[in-house]
């Protein structure tokens, strides 16, 4: 199986007035396609910096970053924008849907910036909305949806461009435990379909769902191990199916409280 991400000796230094902050001090790891990685670490560990680099929102000070077969470490701003549009799917903690757009239009946004917005794309966006259980809310605005529903729109948006991997940043941080479970099940289902997921979190319960956990401290990787006591066993036994997702929709009907 090919590699989705290959990182070698990645460093990132921030120059502040007089001192240089070394946020990342040489990080190397690979993410094979179809993997489900949780990146953990206390604040100040370089977790956010790594996330920004993985998301191509920033450039490393040194080291290489192969996204699929392309070295994106030193690309120009415009090229990085194109990479983000076509090869990375973002899921944020606070959903980050665009308030003036409907559910379908929000899902369309990455395609718009790829320049691939056609009638077929529209169909695909509707299909994705149905897939995450929002088929009957295509024309709703984000404010008319609960937190869990908004996050499911965001997940649909993250896979609309068939990305190399989904990059989730504390994707369940704003959700209650029931909704968190639903979202994690949705991630697992996507992973089960062969999608690569990289999730940044500081919650062990969330990280337990991943196949693999990378722990950072002071800009170094301190551990990188396969998850042995993975909750997936339980989930896969239940065999998360569309019905479950649909029933989850019913349960999360109540508007978001955040």
């Amino acid at each position, binding site marked *: 199986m090919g590699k989705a991400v290959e990182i070698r000796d990645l460093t990132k230094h921030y120059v502040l007035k007089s001192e240089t902050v070394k946020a990342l001090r040489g990080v190397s790891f690979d993410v094979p396609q179809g993997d489900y990685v949780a990146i953990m670490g206390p604040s100040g560990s370089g977790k956010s910096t790594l996330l920004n680099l993985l998301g191509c*929102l920033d450039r490393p000070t040194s080291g290489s970053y192969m996204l699929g077969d392309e070295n994106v470490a030193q690309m120009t*701003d415009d090229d990085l924008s194109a990479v*983000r549009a076509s090869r990375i799917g973002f899921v*944020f903690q606070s959903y980050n*849907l665009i*308030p*003036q757009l409907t559910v379908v239009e929000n899902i369309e*946004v990455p395609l718009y*910036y790829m320049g691939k*917005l056609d009638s077929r794309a529209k169909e695909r966006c509707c299909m994705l909305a149905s897939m995450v259980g929002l088929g009957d809310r295509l024309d709703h605005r984000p404010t008319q949806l609960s937190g869990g529903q908004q996050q499911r729109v965001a997940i649909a948006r993250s896979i609309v461009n068939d990305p190399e991997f989904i990059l989730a940043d504390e994707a369940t941080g704003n959700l209650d435990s029931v909704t968190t479970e639903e979202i994690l099940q949705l991630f697992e289902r996507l992973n089960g379909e062969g999608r690569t997921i990289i999730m940044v979190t500081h919650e062990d319960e969330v990280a337990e769902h991943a196949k693999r956990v990378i722990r950072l401290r002071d800009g170094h990787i301190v551990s990188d191990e396969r998850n042995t006591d993975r909750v997936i066993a339980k989930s896969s036994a239940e065999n998360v199916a569309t019905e479950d997702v649909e029933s989850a929709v019913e349960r999360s009907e109540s508007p978001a409280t955040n």
Partner: protein
Amino acid sequence: MFFRTWILGIKSLLLHPMRSALTVLGIMIGVFSVIALLAIGEGVSIKAQQDIEALGAENIIVRSIEPPNDSIEFSFSAREFGISRAEMEQIRVIPTIAQVIPVRELRLQFQYTGNALAEPRLGRLVGCTPEYQGINRLEVDRGHFLTHPEKQATVCVISAELAKYFFPYEDPLGKEIFVPAKKNRFSIVGVLKEKTATGAVGGSFSGQDFANDVYIPIETMRRLMGDLEEKRSAGSFERKKFELSQVTCKVKDVKDVPKTAKIIESTLRRMSPDREDYGIIVPFELLEQARSTRIMIQLIFGLVAAVSLVVGGIGIMNIMLATVTERTREIGVRRALGACRRDITRQFLIETIVLSVVGGCIGMALGVAFPVSAEGSKVLADWLAPEYYERIPTYFREVVPVLVPWSFPLAFGISVVVGVIFGLYPAMRAAQMDPIEALRHE
């Protein structure tokens, strides 16, 4: 794709309808004031130009000016002033001049003895030649104007107003107008159509009111009345002597007018150097002046209006800066989802262009309706507060705004340019944001 970007911009603007409407209002007023002020300016200058053109661009008018009577001492000798017939003959030989038309005017009472109800009326007795009709654009309603065969006859042509006053139920032709001061009678051979008074032009020339005119052949006038005028009233006795009130010179070619005017002036000065009892009016030069004045008016009005457009533009910039700050998070999200800086700039620029184009279109629509609404408001003002309305100078009441066609593309163009210029900075500021910072923005 293209439409989507625009629809997206409109959607974003509709998220804050009140804010967007107020911004549009700023541009709308700007565009409207450009069109309206230029229309007023055009109306004013067209009126001035019409007044001057009524004098005839190919004419040069030499007019006698009565010097102020400042002598307190009693004198039997008559005051002599004005252009003489000899001087007129000197002017006549100037080769560029086609015609000279002498005029002698007197202010007198007229009477019609056949109508006892009509009081004598004060008017102008104008001694002139048949050519007078042409240069003053007088139109004959009934009968005919003075003719050359009649140059010695005691005939007259009267204005429409006098005809209506003295002969409300009769045919004036063949009747006689009596001039009590001179004890002369003139039989009417023609009645003119109504003619509005010409405006005062150039300061040295008072407006002419043709309302109470009686025209007689100048030779008849000289034969019957001579050159001497006596005026007696309580406590004063005045004698004055003048040969001609005005000589209108018609120049063969309009482009020779300025040159000819100089020749006339030097001719008159050579004959009597220190005189100040005549004035030379060159409508052609006034016309040229009026043209440059018109450009000045348009420039000043245009500038004033442009200032209001710029103010509208600052309004746009203000709103867009606030919008950009407010939507920092959205900018971060869009950048994360693949928008490059150019896309962000375009997005915000489109929003400002939509604002300014909508404002521009509404402003233009109001501009089209301006002349009608201006007339309407005059009528309304006259109806609501006639006593105040009448205090407005006639000149302003009579000015009709005339839309200047090029003011529309101009105003619209400026509004779009203003939108782009004042939208560019906020849009670029939005595009320059670091996506990571923008995403973190609360």
